[in-house]
């Protein structure tokens, strides 16, 4: 008998992936207070009129997860995480431009 392969479909996380505050907390394993602090620090920017109706994109998921690892592994505080994330984005863009040369 041949082996039956089951291919798993994932969800692509991009600018259009929408998740609520509760989803974001569950995906990143943090409390809502932490997300509020990250929003205040400008690490992520929610859309929606009030925090009850906030939603976030797939990009926010990545930023929160990276910020958590930077906090845990390198003891970077939140303003430091915000700075590191912005610099990492800029570095990524510069690397991309350098590759196109």
């Amino acid at each position, binding site marked *: 008998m041949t082996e039956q392969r089951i291919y798993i479909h994932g969800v692509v*996380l991009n600018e259009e992936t929408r998740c609520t505050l509760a989803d974001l907390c569950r995906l990143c*394993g943090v409390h809502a207070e932490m997300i509020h602090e990250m929003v205040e620090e400008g690490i992520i920017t929610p859309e929606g009129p009030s925090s009850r109706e906030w939603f976030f994109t797939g990009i926010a998921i990545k930023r929160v997860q990276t910020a958590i690892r930077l906090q845990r592994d390198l003891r970077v505080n939140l303003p430091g995480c915000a700075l590191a994330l912005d610099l990492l984005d800029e570095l990524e863009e510069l690397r991309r431009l350098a590759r196109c040369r």
Partner: protein
Amino acid sequence: MEYKDYYKILGIPRDATQDQIKQAYRKVARKFHPDVSKEFNAEAKFKDAGEAYEVLKDPEKRTAYDKFGANWREGQHFEPPPNWDAGFEFRGAGYTGGDSGGFSDFFESLFGHGQTGRQRTHVFRMRGEDQHAKIVIPLADAYWGARQTITLTRPVVDTDGHVRTSPHTLHVVIPQGIIEGQRIRLEGQGLPGYGGSPAGDLYLEVAFQEDRLFHAEKRDIHLTLPITPWEAALGATLTVPTLGGHVQLKIPPGAQGGKKLRLKGKGLCSANHRGDQIVTLQIVVPEAKTEEQRSLYRAMAEKMPFNPRSGLET
């Protein structure tokens, strides 16, 4: 089992002070943190540094480790002598913190007892950890969508309570129109949970293989198309490759080198997004090898007076 030279990993002498150890660890951790570093094997180096620090920051563990002597070399075959840790108080204490999931067999056999024993005696419930990995795919797979089999290394706890790494194979669908840097989340495919709790998630970050012809910028695919001067001057319809196969491209008369032409919808397209192929013209001038060919160029110079440097005059 291979000996690990924790001092060498942190780049410090064996008589380093506790402060020097802390500083060296922080420096190495910043340099090789997987979120920050593009160094080759950054993740492994980051884990090694964490393991080295776990031992050297604790004076008891450090003294025990130092007992093996300074003559061991990184990677050398090593078995700890029996009762090597007699008289030290860390036996059974396991880890003091940090992400111990990926520590080496060397660490495990010296300092790793006890931790999982503790887990077994308590009713311990915890969601599995998320796992992050990078997959490198050919551009064609992103264009068409694909099915891929990937193998990840993950830590597993065996029946003795020791942590080992074992390969884990998964078959995944690469969705059509995925672009570089995007992540695919596979729910429940991360590390297993404890005590009946659910597994973590697996995040795959997509990178593209270097391609001989094409390169991708977000959704657009770029191609440089070499053309002759007469194709540029007179216009032509040329066959050009795209990720989806060959198409005909019309070059307008009087095209200059560097001109960009857009093939709509021939980039990386998904359900909601369209990418184009951008073709950059590169005029290649044929070398005049014979007298007849040289006279053709001379005739052109005579009949088509033209100064491409008029803009440079001051």
